């Protein structure tokens, strides 16, 4: 075919009947092919053969089971039919796990990871509604190590998450530190926590009231007996930037993203009998049904492992597998104790406030505030009492609740007596009603569902380290860098809570 095309062109160019290479060289402008029935044509033939073999190989691979080819045209926003690991929930924890899974896979395309997120606008996601703080001042060593590892990750974030030819990641990290205040009653807890934190390697310092007043002259040290200030790796950052950095990098590494809702699972059940004669159902997830938004269309995704990183809605996802729906005093009757809890954040403006030097201050009354931007704005909040927990069916803000916060703020920082509330928002905690600490690990009865949820307000600051730990658990079979076995589901079965001894 191409041979004839070349002939035609040379005939035009040569103005003559003789077709030979000598004429071709004169008119190289018009014809770029050398027409002679010798070697070059045979090269074309072999080159074509190579391409045809390649096409044949690709077609054969598509015909094999496990490929993505279907004879019908399908909606491209549907997830693939098969995935190795399905991560339910596209928040910062979900994407962190996806990134680390791809980071740790041993061979290219070793695992096919699919992240399913039901809200493409992230309008109700806890990640983006968070205050964005990170601190090492915990009482559990595991939490301290998680924070330190996450801070290390964020310090070198461009080594981990930068994508070629794209902008570098800028988390806008403010290194102002957390300042915890303790009253007489709880000062001993703060001292014990201080020694735990120092032992774990966190850089924290204790301040007496006079030192506190010297450091923060705007503070009223009335009632404060001891203060604990984080010197390094503490502060706040932009959660949306972190989420997008993880997402961008994970997608560049080949993670599939799908906007849809997981509405159910198809599973097989294996019933076994215990020594006492009780029957126990072991379930294994075969398919995760992903339904498209505003549509009845759904795709059953065949998967090997499901990771429940759904945040505030993890309890509902676990219920889809029947976790918690069994008889009362059996393991299958223990639900996943994660439920959404609404928390408010109020943006206040105070021109005479503490200014650039403000740390993230947490008072012993439960009130906290931090600086926001450079215009004299601060964001403040408070954890409500158990009895006063707000409704969780929407994200409406209760402005009356601020009346509980204001007196404590004004007492602690006299400049805040004349502040104005500019705005407010609400977000959900993935609140672990059992002991307010994360649940990380496998479920005993559903052998291929992993949990990474229930962090009760600390998910964002621990997300890089949690992602790495989950990837180690899934791909290596056990924790390698940080041992999070204290956060397993086992403590919920044995009813042994590990509580954070906070001063609030």
């Amino acid at each position, binding site marked *: 075919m191409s041979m004839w095309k070349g002939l035609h062109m040379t005939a035009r160019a040569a103005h003559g009947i003789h077709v030979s290479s000598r004429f071709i060289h004169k008119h190289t402008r018009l014809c770029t092919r050398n027409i002679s029935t010798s070697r070059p044509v045979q090269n074309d033939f072999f080159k074509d053969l190579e391409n045809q073999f390649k096409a044949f190989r690709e077609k054969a691979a598509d015909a094999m089971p496990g490929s993505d080819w279907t004879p019908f045209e399908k909606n491209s926003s549907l997830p693939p039919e098969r995935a190795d690991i399905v991560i339910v929930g596209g928040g910062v924890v979900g994407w962190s796990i996806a990134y680390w899974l791809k980071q740790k896979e041993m061979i290219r395309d070793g695992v096919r990871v699919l992240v399913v997120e039901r809200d493409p606008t992230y309008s109700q996601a806890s990640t983006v509604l968070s205050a964005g703080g990170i601190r090492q001042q915990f009482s559990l060593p595991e939490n301290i190590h998680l924070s330190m590892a996450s801070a290390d990750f964020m310090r070198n974030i461009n080594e981990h998450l930068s994508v070629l030819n794209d902008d570098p990641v800028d988390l*806008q*990290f403010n*290194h102002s*530190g957390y300042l915890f205040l303790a009253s007489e009653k709880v000062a001993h807890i703060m001292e014990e926590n201080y020694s735990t934190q120092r032992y774990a390697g966190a850089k924290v310092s204790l301040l007496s009231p006079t030192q506190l007043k010297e450091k923060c002259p705007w503070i009223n040290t009335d009632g404060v007996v001891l203060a604990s200030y984080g010197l390094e790796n503490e502060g706040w950052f932009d959660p949306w930037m972190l989420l997008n950095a993880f997402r961008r990098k994970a997608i560049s590494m080949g993670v599939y993203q799908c906007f849809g809702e997981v509405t159910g699972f198809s599973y097989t059940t294996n019933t076994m009998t215990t020594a006492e004669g009780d029957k126990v159902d072991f379930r294994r997830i075969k398919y995760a049904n992903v339904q498209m938004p505003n549509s009845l269309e759904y795709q059953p995704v065949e998967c090997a492992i499901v990771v429940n990183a759904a945040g505030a809605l993890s309890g509902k996802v676990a219920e889809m597998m029947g976790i918690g729906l069994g008889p009362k005093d059996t393991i299958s009757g223990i639900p996943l104790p994660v439920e959404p809890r609404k928390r408010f954040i109020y943006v206040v403006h105070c021109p005479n406030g503490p200014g650039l030097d403000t740390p993230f201050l947490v008072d012993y009354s439960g009130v906290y505030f931090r600086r926001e931007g450079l215009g004299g704005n601060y964001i403040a909040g408070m954890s409500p009492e158990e009895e006063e927990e707000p409704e969780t069916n929407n994200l409406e803000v209760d402005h009356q609740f601020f009346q509980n916060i204001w007196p404590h703020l004004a007492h602690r920082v006299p400049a805040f007596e004349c502040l104005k509330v500019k705005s407010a928002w609400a977000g959900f905690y993935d609140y672990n009603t059992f002991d307010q600490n994360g649940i990380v690990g496998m479920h005993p009865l559903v052998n291929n569902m992993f949990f990474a949820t229930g962090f009760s307000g600390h998910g964002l600051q621990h997300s890089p380290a949690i992602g790495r730990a989950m990837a180690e658990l899934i791909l290596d079979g056990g924790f390698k860098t940080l041992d999070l076995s204290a956060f397993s589901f086992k403590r919920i079965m044995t009813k042994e809570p590990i509580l954070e001894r906070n001063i609030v």
Partner: protein
Amino acid sequence: MRRSCRQVTLLSAASRYWSSSPVAPPSKQSRLLLFLSQRFHDIETLLSWSSWFKNRGQSEWFRSDRRGKFSWDFMNHRDTSIEEVDVGNTLINYTGLENLVKQRGLRTLSVSGCAEVDDWFLSRLYIFQDTLEELDISNCPRISVGGLAALQKLRYTDQHGRK
């Protein structure tokens, strides 16, 4: 006269005895100016020696000469602590601060023109919070507001710097 090169560390000693010190006997702290390069492992080891004790007061600047060689004069002062460090226009970063953490008497630090100094570097300067008096962070393009917020931990510092 100080001449600074990006790649080569300068070392030249100019001795001047600080004999007019009013308060303490001359055997207090000496001033050394060091251009540090992370490639110079002998300098790193030198700084990790913890047996610096006060011997005599002098104000000297130690730099390497054009060929990158340090004179060994500073070995005469191994028992003194460093007061002023100028690591301007080098590639020092957060990990490079490891070399300086033992210097408890540091009074002046200049990281002017260092391209790798960022907010995390500034957040680690709390180590010198009690003694640091002057900090020069001019011409460091990677510093932002978040890092300046960390400088509140330095108590006595009179800060001046410009982008």
